[in-house]
């Protein structure tokens, strides 16, 4: 190895570019990564939003070539609900843990103003649980089952005119939280010319209302060309079917009508193949990355700012999270103490108040008692007086009676004498 092979280039960020004179071997790093990931297995979460009966479950079945066993939903659900189901799929030696989340009852209610809320809440909940895991002290992100929604398929009803008002309102609420991929469902009811006009109308409405749908990435040269073409064909017009019909001498997935057979995998008939390619074959990893680096980071930033954390303090000097956390903790403890003090004081005051109240009550009671006693004594005295009078009367009456009796007795003897006298005088 001669020294002339070592190139000297101007130092840009502290690292010099060196060229190698032989094969070192670190070009196998991507392979190592792939091997590791394959051993670990992959995880993907799709959210399907659309009216009841628009074909969400059928399209999932068709995309992943299995039967996810979804039952028909009723049109009379009072509120929008979400139903999530997780499946483990395997293709060659790659394992995929797929979670499909479907909306139930979307678009059926009379008043759809709150229809988007359960969806937004679900997405936020997944972000929240990831954030919690990230902030834990003992965390296991390595084996954490990532339930954040990576892609959202929004099923547009094939009216042929434009988006529905509900579609616009919902997509506006979701475009900053999840990668939205709009699809035109049941596209076998729109003819080619109508479809072209419909797609243009939808895209212009989305653009004029500022809805950011997912754009396939153009930074990787290997897929940039195909992705650019696909970006121009959004939204994809899809037809789903799990039934097979024989066309020519093959059995293909198709829908049989009296006037013809719509083949799902025929690029001339619908955009199903394009959707499958873009969603699964080419851009699945990018969808996950976007979810993590854009939507999740936005959520995290908003959440932490809400809690009061900042990256820079008022003098614009960078502040570490630890310092902020310590400061918050101190603040919290001080506040806690203050509150405790306040509560204690309030308690003491209340006790005092109650005491004085009770004392007042006691005093009042005492005075009433005294009053009653006095009253009682007065009455007793009055009664005594009356009794005395009565006794006086009685005694005077007794005396008079005795005097009267005496008089009567005297009278009787006097009379007796008179009688005797008369009797005696009569004899004479």
């Amino acid at each position: 190895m001669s020294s002339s092979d070592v190139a000297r280039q101007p130092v840009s960020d502290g690292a010099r570019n060196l060229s190698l004179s032989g094969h070192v071997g670190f070009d196998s790093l991507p392979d190592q990564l792939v091997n590791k990931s394959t051993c670990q297995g992959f995880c993907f979460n799709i959210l399907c939003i659309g009216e009841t009966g628009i074909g969400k479950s059928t399209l999932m079945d068709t995309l992943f070539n299995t039967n996810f066993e979804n039952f028909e939903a009723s049109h009379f659900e009072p509120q929008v609900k979400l139903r999530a189901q997780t499946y483990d799929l395997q293709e060659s030696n790659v394992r995929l843990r797929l979670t499909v989340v479907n909306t139930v009852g979307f678009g059926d209610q009379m008043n759809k103003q709150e229809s988007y809320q359960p969806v937004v809440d679900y997405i936020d909940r997944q972000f929240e649980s990831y954030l919690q895991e990230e902030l834990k002290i003992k965390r296991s992100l390595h084996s954490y089952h990532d339930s954040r929604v990576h892609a959202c398929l929004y099923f547009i009803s094939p009216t042929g005119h434009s988006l529905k008002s509900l579609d616009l309102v919902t997509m506006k609420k979701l475009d900053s939280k999840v990668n939205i991929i709009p699809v035109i469902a049941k596209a076998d009811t729109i003819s080619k010319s109508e479809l072209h006009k419909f797609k243009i109308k939808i895209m212009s409405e989305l653009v004029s209302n500022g809805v950011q749908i997912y754009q396939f990435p153009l930074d990787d040269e290997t897929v940039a060309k195909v992705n650019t073409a696909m970006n121009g064909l959004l939204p994809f017009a899809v037809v789903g079917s799990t039934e097979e019909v024989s066309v020519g001498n093959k059995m293909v997935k198709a829908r049989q009508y009296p006037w013809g057979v719509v083949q799902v995998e025929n690029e001339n008939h619908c955009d199903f193949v394009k959707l499958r390619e873009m969603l699964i074959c080419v851009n699945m990893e990018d969808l996950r990355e976007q979810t993590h680096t854009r939507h999740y980071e936005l959520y995290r930033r908003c959440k932490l700012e809400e809690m009061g954390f900042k990256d820079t303090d008022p003098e614009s000097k960078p502040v570490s999270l630890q310092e902020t956390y310590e400061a918050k903790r101190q603040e919290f403890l001080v506040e806690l103490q203050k509150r405790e003090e306040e509560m204690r004081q309030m308690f003491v005051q209340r006790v005092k108040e109650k005491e004085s109240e009770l004392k007042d009550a006691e005093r009042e009671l005492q005075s009433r008692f005294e009053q009653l006693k006095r009253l009682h004594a007065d009455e007793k005295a009055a009664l005594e007086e009356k009794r005395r009078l009565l006794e006086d009367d009685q005694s005077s009456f007794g005396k008079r009676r005795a005097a009267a009796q005496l008089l009567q007795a005297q009278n009787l003897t006097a009379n007796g004498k008179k009688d005797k006298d008369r009797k005696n005088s009569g004899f004479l």
Partner: protein
Amino acid sequence: MTSSLRYKSRIPIKTVRADLEKQYVGFATLPNQVHRKSVKKGFDFTLMVAGESGMGKSTLVNSLFLTDLYKDRKLLNAEERINQTVEIIKHTVDIEEKGVKLKLTIVDTPGFGDAVNNNQCWKPITDYIDQQFEQYFRDESGLNRKNIQDNRVHCCLYFIPPFGHGLRPVDVEFMRALHEKVNVVPLIAKADCLTPNEIKKLKDRIREEIEKFGIKVYQFPECDSDEDEEFKQMDKELKECTPFAVIGSNTVVEARGQRVRGRLYPWGIVEVENQSHCDFVKLRNMLIRSHMHDLKDVTCDVHYENYRAQCIQEMTSKLAQDQRMESPIPILPMSTPDVETEKLIKMKDEELKRMQEMLNKMQQQMHEKDQ
């Protein structure tokens, strides 16, 4: 315009043989006279179409009457529709066929079911129907009745989206709000997204739900027993086919060597007038060729009479309460007392009876005492 089905004309147009003149009175030509007079007078028909936007209502109306009624129509964007209210738009055309004139009015209801909050979104529609009834009621009770314009809605086609599993809450509420004011004919719109099996399942489901929710859709009248077999068979098929699954088209395409109204797809051509593709022909026959007059009759005899009776009852009860109010229309004093006054009368009768009994008892007592 050719079709394989023609309404059977039952007008006797044969001439009478001379030797039967003795037993022949001549009133068998009455149907002829009616026919002549009605052709001279002309007919009118008011059809209402209702359903969410994008269900193909305008296309179907154009296909039914083979005209283009919606030349300068402006459709709203999604954001304009978030808080849209329902409008009522009338299009009137005069069309003529074989000397028979028809004044056709199509009442369109743009904005129905398009807003985010659709509570009571049918109120403008029921108000409109009531208004037409009221207008006719006033005209009928007026002094000069020569030229009454009949603007009452004779039939309402309701478009049910084929993308779901059956009726949705807004469909049920709308049909229930209207089934006693107008003849409701439910249709499955855009039926070219359903395979024959799916159509059958959906029709069964919708019929079940219509019964479950007590919605009184327009019923075809029963056949008379002296109709011929072909007619009875046709009638039976018609009844079993409801609700009709229809497809409409504004364009003419080339199929099997003929120029037909249809939709061109990469996988085939849907012909609007092909009975195995959709029920458009049945709908057209029912609506125009066989049951148009019956729809008008049911509107006059059932829905309008209901409205009129209700109106009069309200007015007389108001009059009874407030004697100073003038009646805006000439009404006869009620010969049959309504329920409330009857109850009052009964109560008073009972009271009188009781008092009479008491009086009798008292008289008896007094009599006994006297004795």
